[in-house]
């Protein structure tokens, strides 16, 4: 299946290669570089590139291209899903997944990759099991390792892989037993010029951090499970219980994992927590244009909107912008024509605004489209769909765990057309 993996940074350097079958020369990446050149942006590189003898399947994450080389027919999603799993694993191991971090931890990376595939076929992809095989680096362990020369490789053998509950290692012990669940919802929306919703839907996940001793058996129930339209589960969730009772029943993996992801469809009315007032105008006669945007809260259920950022790709004809924000900071990159405004919190009493002029290339005709505005924001303690966890119960263990549930709403792909 997967023959080799190349990690390529955005300037086109191959900084890591790994082969699971015979070695494929890195010159195969030339085809990739060609495609990269043709695509104007990194995201536009086609995910599947055929070459005379190989196929290159890639994902682009954290400014790194993960390029898998395959030789024969395979479902492309299989490879792409696996590559994403690789990235997730790195992120889980090192906190961030970036070129310097991978370079610093190249040995661990190599050991992990070695365990993830055998002959190109996935072997151990569950991060909990991998962590049992190869310990993630911590500051303490790094220090100890340098002094004593001891290792990152787990000294016990991974029994979890052989158990009935392959995602959980045995013999887990904690002094503080805790289970935290984060319900995170992202709003994907397109708003039109007048501020009405063209389309809006919610993508939600429940991420868990479970640190419980022994073999706890958890059930999580919702007040309103019918809201969830399209769900997909971590393999630990018992599907039958969900089908019959709409209850999530599972033996959790140890540590961080994504329990559930769901979708609340466009048919349900989605509350839109912010609005953007904008007036952007280019005049044919002059080389100056006017720019003004204001951001304000709409349906926030009484919560504060934080972490607001506004970005907008200006038309090519825009040379520069001179703007004054009422709060926060803004930048305009005259090369990429990207305007970004870091707003911060929205104070409903004093709405943040960004005003000023933009200068256009002299003599150039006025751009025929106004730029779209992309919005980022966060609202703590609110799941915008209204999803509520009813209760969490634990069976199979005697101690009382500490349980915590957090809700958060974020902007996903939130776009305002102007």
């Amino acid at each position: 299946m997967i023959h080799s993996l190349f990690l390529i940074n955005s300037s086109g350097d191959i900084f890591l290669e790994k082969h699971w079958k015979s070695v494929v020369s890195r010159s195969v990446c030339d085809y990739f570089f060609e495609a990269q050149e043709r695509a104007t942006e990194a995201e536009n590189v086609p995910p599947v590139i055929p070459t005379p003898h190989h196929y290159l399947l890639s994902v682009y994450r954290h400014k790194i291209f993960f390029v898998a080389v395959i030789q024969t027919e395979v479902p492309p999603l299989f490879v792409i899903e696996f590559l994403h799993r690789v990235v997730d694993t790195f992120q889980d191991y090192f906190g961030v997944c970036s070129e310097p971090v991978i370079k610093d931890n190249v040995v661990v990376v190599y050991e992990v990759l070695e365990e993830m595939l055998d002959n190109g076929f996935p072997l151990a992809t569950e991060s909990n099991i991998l962590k049992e095989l190869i310990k993630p680096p911590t500051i303490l362990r790094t220090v100890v390792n340098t002094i004593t020369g001891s290792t990152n490789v787990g000294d016990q053998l991974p029994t979890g892989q052989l158990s009935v509950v392959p995602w959980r290692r045995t013999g887990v012990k904690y002094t503080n037993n805790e289970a935290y669940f984060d319900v995170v919802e992202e709003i994907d929306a397109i708003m039109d010029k007048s501020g009405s919703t063209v389309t809006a839907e919610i993508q939600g996940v429940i991420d868990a951090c479970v640190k419980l001793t022994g073999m706890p058996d958890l059930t999580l129930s919702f007040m309103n499970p019918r809201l969830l339209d399209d769900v997909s589960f971590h393999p630990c969730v018992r599907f039958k219980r969900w089908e019959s009772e709409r209850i999530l029943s599972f033996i959790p993996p140890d540590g961080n994992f994504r329990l559930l992801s769901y979708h609340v469809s466009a048919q349900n009315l989605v509350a839109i927590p912010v609005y953007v007032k904008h007036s952007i105008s280019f005049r044919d006669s002059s080389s100056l244009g006017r720019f003004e945007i204001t951001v304000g809260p709409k349906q926030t259920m009484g919560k504060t909107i934080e972490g607001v950022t506004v970005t907008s790709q200006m038309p090519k004809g825009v040379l520069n912008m001179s703007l004054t924000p009422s709060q926060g900071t803004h930048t305009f990159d005259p090369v990429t024509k990207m305007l970004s405004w870091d707003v911060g919190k929205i104070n409903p009493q004093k709405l943040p605004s960004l005003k000023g002029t933009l200068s256009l290339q002299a003599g150039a005709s006025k751009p025929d489209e106004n730029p779209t505005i992309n919005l980022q924001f966060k609202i703590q303690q609110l799941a915008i769909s209204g999803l509520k966890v009813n209760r969490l119960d634990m069976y199979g263990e005697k101690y009382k765990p500490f349980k915590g549930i957090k809700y958060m709403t974020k902007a996903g792909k939130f776009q305002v057309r102007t």
Partner: protein
Amino acid sequence: MTSNSLAYSEQPGGGEAAELGQEAIPAPAPAGAFGLFGSDVKKNEDLKQMLESNKDSAKLEAMKRIVGMIAKGKNASELFPAVVKNVASKNIEIKKLVYVYLVRYAEEQQDLALLSISTFQRALKDPNQLIRASALRVLSSIRVPIIVPIMMLAIKEASADLSPYVRKNAAHAIQKLYSLDPEQKEMLIEVIEKLLKDKSTLVAGSVVMAFEEVCPDRIDLIHKNYRKLCNLLVDVEEWGQVVIIHMLTRYARTQFVSPWREDDGLDDNEKNFYESEDEETEKSDKRKKQYTMDPDHRLLIRNTKPLLQSRNAAVVMAVAQLYWHISPKSEAGIISKSLGMFEPYLKSFYVRSTDPTMIKTLKLEILTNLANEANISTLLREFQTYVKSQDKQFAAATIQTIGRCATNISEVTETCLSGLVCLLSNRDEIVVAESVVVIKKLLQMQPAQHGEIIKHMAKLLDSIAVPVARASILWLIGENCERVPRIAPDVLRKMAKSFTSEDDLVKLQILNLGAKLYLTNSKQTKLLTQYILNLGKYDQNYDIRDRTRFIRQLIVPNEKSGALSKYAKKIFLAQKPAPLLESPFKERDHFQLGTLSHTLNIRASGYLELSNWPEVAPDPSVRNVEVIGLAKEWAPSGKTKKENPVKKFYSESEEEEEEDSSDSNNDSGGPSDSASCISGSESGGDSSEDSSEDSSSEQESESESESEVENKRSSKTQRKSDLEDRGKKTSRSKTSDMSSTGSSSAEENSSDSESESESESETESRKVPKVKEKKPQQDRNPINPGVSLLDLDDFNLVSTPIALPTPALSPSLIADLEGLNLSSSSSVINVSTPVFVPTKTHVLLHRMSGKGLAAHYFFPRQPCIFDDKMVSVQITLNNTSDRKIENIHIGEKKLPVGMKMHVFNPIDSLEPEGSITVSVGIDFCDSTQTASFQLCTKDDCFNVNIQPPVGELLLPMTMSEKEFKKEQGMLTGMNEASATIIAAPQNFTSSMILQKVVNVANLGAVPTSQDNIHRFAAKTVHSGSLMLVTVELKEGSTAQLIINTEETLIGSVLLRELKPVLSQG
């Protein structure tokens, strides 16, 4: 293989250098070869020194640096001799890193690599399965042809390893060996065949992968394992699921007939979306009346459905393609496939300016396919936004899309056309050009009335520079030159002026235009055309020169011109068929959905064709065999071939009988003595060791298909004697009521077994008066009396064989039950009759509140006849009033989600003082939730509840002590709950414990060889999960109560209920 040789040739330098270095350490050679990289060499020198030091820390540091070099793609092959020495290091990390190195460079350093082999051979014999597995992994990854025989041997041994993890690695090794040496194919297929029989979910995905790579055409190897794979699928790891589903899709297309029929309802209006299947539809037409889906086909479709909830996109896609390719059209909607299903999600496909180009294109394609009369106006408005997009390529693609919508939906053709005309004044050239091209195509479809547009476009020629657009305009004017008689010659005049500077594409169209005008309006254009033809004659492009010569000969009359020139006008101005605006994604549907080939629309190497449905289904019975083939796990492969058809039939029906018998026990309504005491004989009877061994050997003889007939004979006789034996023993040990009743029945039974032919009818006749639901049994008996006669002696006699009452259920039910049997945990374990049926009744409706109608219920502990997931409940209704109560029935049911209830038939009337007993079935979904419903009479409705005690959610099972321990071993960890009990010693006698336990819960006793341990087994009614209860007597007056079950919730409730009962005096 090609890449192998590539790799060789690419790094010869490195290889040689390393060899040199090896001969003459300390490396004078590199001084020459690597003069420029002096520092590198030095570095490698100190790496060598570190590797040779006796400190692990230094070695580890060296290995880490070497791995770093490999990762960066630097050549580290010259360190091979120094590294390979450490292959046997005690330090795990060093060892692992050496493995990494070895696998990377062994191919280049074959001779040296051989030094490491013995280390792996030793490790292959290690008692630890993980070490065996990793040794096999590395050994098989070393691509050195000399060790092929060693690898083959290792794979063969590993494929018979007790550890499924090692077997999984063996499956991976098969592919590696195959790519190293395809000559080994035949031998490897044997191993694959063996591993395909494996029951472990760990192995399934990997071996199917090996199958797909080595011998995808040997579909015959799958037959016997088909049902098992379907049933295991949910529990296989996600990557394996993808591979298995793809393989099973191909399998289904060769083994089942098409489920696609014309009368499928959906098909009628959606036929155009399924064009590719039209042929099949026709073919199946003849058979459509008698089409019934093969239960195995159904099994696959049903068992893949839950996987749609997988978090792994590849799994979801795999299921989607399976539904697309093999499910009936009406069911494909599950994956939102039929386009109507996508419609509500139309807006989800709206494009954002930040989407990557590929996503934009795909979204556009989807939107186009979803467009219809109802939504086109919304869509067109949305498209307007896209046309204005800064991404001009995307804008152009949108214009194409608008064109397609215009052709597909005639209502909007006009609107689209005028919209596109507006775009002609767009500032962006790409947009204008694309519009011109699309308008040209649209106009061609409906000529005549568009003179205005053509005039408008003619004006554009002054401004627009994109060749395709110019060419399109010229062509359009040429085609319609008679409709714009004044403009056309003027255009030609302008073009003649700029001819030399035009693009080739445009030049050709200028020639065309000239020719057409010459033919229609030669008066005005004759000279112009001749001028253009002269220019064309000396053009640099031969294509244009050819065309010029051709046109001249055709249109300009001269003495040489042949007959054709008469028809020149007809040739040039013929009615041309309108082009079809087609999807760029068309024509890839002959590839299997979700494959690489489908994505690229190119046949990828290794693509496996999806065959068409067979006209007539191949023999479905080929899949039957494996029902028993599975139960034996590691049968010597030679023997399987000996199985003759008679034997197959024999053992298969045996299997069915078994199911039947277990079910039928359940049917015998009412607390039948015979049933209860028989299991009493089994449970209470023997604590001696030999009997438990015997019963386990029975289990084996049932489960192992290769057991020859003689074998059976012997086991039969053995069992007879065993039974007699047991009978005697139980009669000796009259410790409790139950065991004493047991003894009598056991004696009866042993006599039964001596005259098998009578046994069934005898049991029956004994029951008829007592049991209500008796009739179906008689129906079934005549169906295959021969089989039951044959099989009886093979039965585990403790479970009384009574026939299954509902043959109608059978195909799917049997499949279900097989599923249960095959599931990795359980081998053959029988549901038995209850040890004890408590007579305690519960009040359902008090006579005071029921206006004279009183109702009581109790649990007869019989498997329910209505549905095997239901608990049967008997309700006794009494009329305590002085009037007749009429029409007693169950009214509205308020059941928790998932719960189901089978009601009794309405009772017409109940006389005063009258009493009647009815039975209902309730599927409690293995929970102790209350089932609420209304008990109604003609005049009133009463709300009543049934809450089951947890012990009634079980069905007792018989199993041997060995079985029990094995199952218990698999249900440890979180599946185990335990408690300590303290009670007076007199309460800890076997009979007391038995009595107390079975009073609380419907458990079957397991024969035990130890006096101080009592075991009980049952399965939950709904899910069939095992519930194993152990009471282990300890020193003093304590005992340990242990419950093992997957249903931890019920397990803990049961534990709570049993604990006080056992500790009571």
